[in-house]
């Protein structure tokens, strides 16, 4: 079992590695921004898979870590721009949590570029597409995550 995973990892290491990225987007701004990118037919890589939450404040750092454990190579957190939170302050709280989490991940040796945060408003379809492109490229560059992934060796 252990071996097969390693083989898999090696296989993934190849150029054609397609990172699995989880995006947590808030319902009001960034999810709407992503929808706008869609209605405007802006193209971006398909690696990001979105999980919709009501507010970026809902994103418990455990979600992020758990995503890395369960097989995400990267995580993107999207919220409303500061001051625009539908719930007034959820994004501000998320921003603090994110700052600490990112530092901590870096500190234990997990590339912090795997966990990103962005502000995308409902009108920023273009920005959303750009951010996804940027993040996907970066994580593709970093290769598959080796550290936190659950081996599930059973």
């Amino acid at each position: 079992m252990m071996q097969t995973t390693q083989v898999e990892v090696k296989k993934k290491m190849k150029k054609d590695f397609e990172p699995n990225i989880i995006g947590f987007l808030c319902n009001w701004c960034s999810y709407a921004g992503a929808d706008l990118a869609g209605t405007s037919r802006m193209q971006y890589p398909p690696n990001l898979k979105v999980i919709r939450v009501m507010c970026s404040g809902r994103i418990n750092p455990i979600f992020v870590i758990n995503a890395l454990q369960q097989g995400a190579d990267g995580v993107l957190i999207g919220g409303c721009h500061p001051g625009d939170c539908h719930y007034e302050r959820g994004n501000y709280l998320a921003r603090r949590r994110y700052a600490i989490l990112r530092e901590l991940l870096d500190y234990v040796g997990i590339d912090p570029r795997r966990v990103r945060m962005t502000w995308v408003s409902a009108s920023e379809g273009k920005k959303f597409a750009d951010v996804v492109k940027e993040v996907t490229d970066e994580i593709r560059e970093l290769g598959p995550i080796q550290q936190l992934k659950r081996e599930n060796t059973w």
Partner: protein
Amino acid sequence: MVNEKQLRDEVKKLVSRDDVKYVIGYEQGTYGFQVTPSFAFTPEEAERFIFSPLCANNLSVYLMLEEKPPLRKGEKEDTRKVGLVVKGCDARAVVQILQEKGLKRESLVIIGVPCTGVIDPKKITVKFPHQIKPVDVREEGNHYVLTINGKNQKIPKDELLFEKCKQCEYPTPVIHDVLLGDEVKSTKKEEYKEIKTLEKKALKEKWEFWSKAFDRCIRCYACRNVCPLCYCKECIVDQLSPQWIYRSVNRSENTVWNLIRAYHLAGRCSGCGECERACPMNIPLTMLNKKIEKDIKELFQYVAGVNLEEKPLLAMFKPNDTEDTIL
């Protein structure tokens, strides 16, 4: 250091009061350099109290550990105060608990000990691995004087001190009802040298360092139980649905456990170092805690456990908090 007679007298006075349930302090341990927590309900029991450079435990952990069995019909809640002997770092834990409103200020009587540093039990046992008989340890200037088998030995303080004590910024309890002895002023500044060195290393090296440490973790959770601020009724790792972290002991889960523990103490950890002291597997937990302590100081100008009025770090924000890495 503290005049033990004064300490005992103070405790005796307290336990004789009707509104005080008991006082928590230290007494001589069962062997070598051990000191053990002690609960004095009566003046006689207060006689056992000591304070020496070996008193490393942070007794404030007992504040939230007190078991309150459900009241029987007609029974009234015991609202008597609990007395507690605290050093500088311990007091910060108390402040933090009070700040989180875990306890009411009036439910405590705090006996503050201006602290000149305590001895790291790991360091001293390495020096005297076979010491069985309890040892008297005194502080004399920059040295500790140990009386072993009637003979005195002088050891430079630096060799025995806890690392945390060398950089302690709050040696005098920030909160107290009684202060035993004169205030100790600190000119030290936490420089986070070790942290900064590690921060600068390559990701790979950092991961190697930590994964080796976390691999040792047996998930006994001693670090959690000894921590005065880990007082959740049901820790996430004990919950079944959802399983936040799997119970399997392996690198992935261990890492997550250690990260989450540290994260849950962000802006709360008092820096007492008990977690690391309790960890049987010598995992450098302080290096995780201090990292967060440093970050929040730099990013949010936040210091835990010094201000009773402060709001929890992660429950508030400033509109101009850092945006550095946000896309």
